[in-house]
């Protein structure tokens, strides 16, 4: 356990170093990249922000509550960007489908450890996260929230749960790439895009049955709406443990499917073009 933690921190360290070197070496392009990420992240939440300003309240949430929720969504985006975007770690279908798992299999570290650390870019990938902190702080002031250590602890915990949900959801669909590489890439990109584009949508105004679907099978509500409401102390029609239940369930399903897929990969190899008559 201790040895694994040491390895993880060492690998985070080298990923961070490579990122810093890029920033120092190619500052102009790196800054442009940071700005592009920021604009892209803000654009996904801006529409909901403008609507909340126009109508003051949507789905049972005031505009300030929505701003807080969007801040949570922004933090979540930032974490994903910082930890899982680089080297396609969060889009594992691209690694699987293009036969790049071979590179991971010849390294003397467990695959899970490599996936956890290979995408870490704390310098070029922190803009959205910092923006999220700003939004959370600003909305907290507007809402007169006095966030204590416990609240911040819950905020971090819920963020970790939401990151795991997005990561697991992506991996569940990405595992299709083990069997149908091209289709797997397309499907998983669309699946991740679904969560990404709808994460800032307040689900309070939709029927209960749909809320259940959007918090479990298609966990859009678990990426911002549900955890933000828990933090704000708003009453929801669900158990307070739903976030943990969904997180653990999706993680379990993703782990089982990935392990099964990895076994298939070791048996069949990369089959990107096999279904079209090409060799491996």
């Amino acid at each position, binding site marked *: 356990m201790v040895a694994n933690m040491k390895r993880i921190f060492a690998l985070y*360290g080298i990923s961070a170093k490579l990122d810093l*070197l*890029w920033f120092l070496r190619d500052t102009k392009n790196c800054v442009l990249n940071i700005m592009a990420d920021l604009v892209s992240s803000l654009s996904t939440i801006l529409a909901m922000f403008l609507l909340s300003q126009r109508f003051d309240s949507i789905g049972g949430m005031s505009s300030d509550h929505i701003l807080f929720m969007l801040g949570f969504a922004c933090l979540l985006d930032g974490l994903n960007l910082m930890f899982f975007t680089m080297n396609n770690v969060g889009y594992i279908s691209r690694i699987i489908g293009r036969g790049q798992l071979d590179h991971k299999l010849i390294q003397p570290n467990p695959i899970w450890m490599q996936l956890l650390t290979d995408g870490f870019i704390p310098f070029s990938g922190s803009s959205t996260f910092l923006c999220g902190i700003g939004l959370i702080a600003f909305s907290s002031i507007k809402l007169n929230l006095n966030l204590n250590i416990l609240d911040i602890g819950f905020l971090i915990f819920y963020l970790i749960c939401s990151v795991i949900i997005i990561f697991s959801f992506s991996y569940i669909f990405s595992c299709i790439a083990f069997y149908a590489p091209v289709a797997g890439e397309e499907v998983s990109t669309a699946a991740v895009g679904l969560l990404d584009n709808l994460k800032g949508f307040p689900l309070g105004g939709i029927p209960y049955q749909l809320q259940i679907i959007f918090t479990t099978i298609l966990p859009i509500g678990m990426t911002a709406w549900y955890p933000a409401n828990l933090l704000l102390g708003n009453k929801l029609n669900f158990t307070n443990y739903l976030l943990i239940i969904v997180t653990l369930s999706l993680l379990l399903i993703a782990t089982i499917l990935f392990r099964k897929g990895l076994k298939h990969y070791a048996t069949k190899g990369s089959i990107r073009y*096999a279904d079209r*008559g090409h060799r*491996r």
Partner: protein
Amino acid sequence: MQLKDQYVMQTVDIAVNIENVTKEFKQWQRGSDIKDIVTNLLKPKTKTVKALNDVSLKINKGEFVAYAGANGAGKSTTIKILSGIMHPSYGKVSVLGLNPKVSRIELMKRIGVVFGQRTELWWDHPISASFDWKRVAWNIDKDQFKKRLDKLIELLDLSAILDTFARELSLGQRMRADLALMLLHNPDVIFLDEPTLGLDVLAKRHMIDYLKKINQEDGVTIVVTSHDMDDLEEMAQRIILLSNGQIAFDGSFDSLREHTGNLCRIKIYTNNGHKHNLKTAKLIKSEKGFSEYQFDSQKNSIPSVLNELSNIDSIHDIEIYKAPIEQVIAELYTSWK
């Protein structure tokens, strides 16, 4: 007790042990007629292809082995199985006494793999950054890493390209950098899948010289695949030839030549440029001023060929040499079809 000791002795000396390994793949068989649409959709036909068919071999520590075969013979599949990327359908594999399927992580600390068509270098970073990454990923001691890196930089002539991005390197430079990256953790066994592919003469020369050096001086076990038989002959002491997933030949290059009939070639230069038909040798090429013949020295001895040639007055020069190994193997491949 004695049996156990003997067993330990055997395993200690063996670097690679493959026992009755078979690797099967399924291939879709789809007809292109309209009537086949339903069959393709509901019950597509598949054909089982055996990339490796009951292959058994042992490679001792310190050996330099060429692993060759025509396209689709099963070379890359073997390398992938040995390095734990793929698992065999049947049979047992061990590398340095470890099962790649079970002990992948432990094994990766002790072996190195290079796929000539791929790179392990970080594409958008200078190669020095890739070396640094390797130190952390393989958890190599800092002092040992520095010593080894300095040695590799000198031997593989990398100093001029240390700060160059991997994507900006020529193929030869990239291969040298990939080789250095692979050797940084001081592996006991290395697998090279077509490392000389696409390299120019000088780059190839560098690579061959270096591989021979680490094999002879450091005792590193090397298994190399390539389609360039002349390169393989220069590097390796032993050649294993695969054909249709089975070992068709396993031995030295000399015994391969004997096995295929000790083919020799003779080139004669004449004053008039006429070509002559010989009883003891077969004419394979005739150009301005010279003719080239091939003969099997086991069937027709060199003196008998020379004796026949002595009847031709216009000869002013003769060259006799062994047929290129490429030729020997090409004839084998043809005979296997």
